[in-house]
């Protein structure tokens, strides 16, 4: 509703995006971070954000407005649990990133190929099982052999994963939830 109104009033698309939709989600993110609201409320806000994005997407393409960054995400090979990964994707999109979601049960080859093809800024991997999380290292090793490690940021998350594990396998960052992932990646693209 508000987005339609802003479009009708000929407010620049970039302004609608940055000062309307993304700014709104930033407020939601802060509220969530401080436990004043919880995940269901964030997701309701995300739906509103998506509805607004659907309206301005054609205008963004028309005006050649870039997203703030591109992230390839997926749940690691052998793992079907993708709810956490989906939430990260929703929050990244809400923050203005373009998200290439490879789904679940993703092989190292697919992660690396997509990162190269899409010229991604970052790869985000998720796992729920303690026995599949080790597959994240395989992706990083393949990134090294393909010469893209260090050029594309690697961020990991999921219930059994922690900061120490991220360091051990050579991931750049660990995010315990979607909002943290947004925070880390926003800092990264800002410094890039």
């Amino acid at each position, binding site marked *: 509703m508000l987005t339609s109104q802003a479009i009708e009033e000929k407010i620049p698309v970039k302004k609608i995006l940055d000062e309307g939709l993304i700014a709104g989600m930033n407020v939601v993110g802060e509220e969530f971070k401080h*436990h004043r609201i*919880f995940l269901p409320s964030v997701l309701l806000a995300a739906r509103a954000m998506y509805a607004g994005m659907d309206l301005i997407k054609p205008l963004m393409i028309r005006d050649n407005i870039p997203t703030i960054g591109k992230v390839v995400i997926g749940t690691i090979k052998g793992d*079907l649990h993708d709810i956490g990964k*989906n939430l990260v994707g929703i929050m990244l999109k809400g923050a203005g990133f373009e998200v290439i979601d490879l789904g679940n049960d993703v092989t190292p080859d697919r992660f690396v190929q997509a990162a190269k093809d899409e010229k991604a800024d970052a790869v985000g991997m998720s796992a729920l099982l*303690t026995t599949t999380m080790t597959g994240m290292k395989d992706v990083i090793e393949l990134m090294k052999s393909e010469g893209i490690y260090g050029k594309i940021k690697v961020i990991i998350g999921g219930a059994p994963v922690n900061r120490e594990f991220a360091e051990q396998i050579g991931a750049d960052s660990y995010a315990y939830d979607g909002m943290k992932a947004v925070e880390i990646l926003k800092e990264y693209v800002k410094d890039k």
Partner: protein
Amino acid sequence: MTEIIKFDMNDIIPGREEVLRNQGVIPGAVLEDKIRDLLEQAIREFQSLAEPVGVMKEVSIGDFKDIYKGEGRNDEPTPVADIFPKADCMALFAVTLGQKISDKIDQHFKANNFAEGCMLDAGASAGADQAAEIMQRMYEQEIAERFDDFDAIGVVRYSPGYCGWHISAQKKLFGFLGPEKIGITLRETYLMDPLKSVSGVIIAGPKEIHQFENNYPCCENCDDQTCLERMQALKNA
């Protein structure tokens, strides 16, 4: 003997607090009406879509040794490897909520109804765990009369994919148990379809066999406190 178990829906409806807790909502938090409505909608969807069914079959220590070994990809050592040889008896199990509920979760996400999808997903995860818990209690009741002092017996379930027990063991577990009978199939990557399914082994033996220090290799990078909570609950029981 293989038992097929149909559950009473009332027994597996997830607790509202648990569904919220699964989404990080602090117990006792004041919720907006919208969130309460979402919760009630998820419970109604759960009731109309879940088709809970389970299968259970006793297994000898000898047979389980091979099932546990799977494709030889387990960590060494693991808690389960140390526990099962000391068991008195054990049973393999699998439970599922069926495909419809997973399909509904996917539909919600595809329609950008993220909050509805997440709420139902949290409810379905809690419901599947509850069904597994009921299977465990049923096994407990079945074997109780075999023991003179059942109070000293601890009955705990463990699943491939956790605590260093590699998920590839699912293949042999499925070969022995046959969860296909209740509509659960195994993917090449050893994961189950429908997604809201739980499989594993229920191990019964002296309570102390289930107690372990969390210093196994698999514990090194694991923040999950479930095993510790279980051990504490067993001590207090």
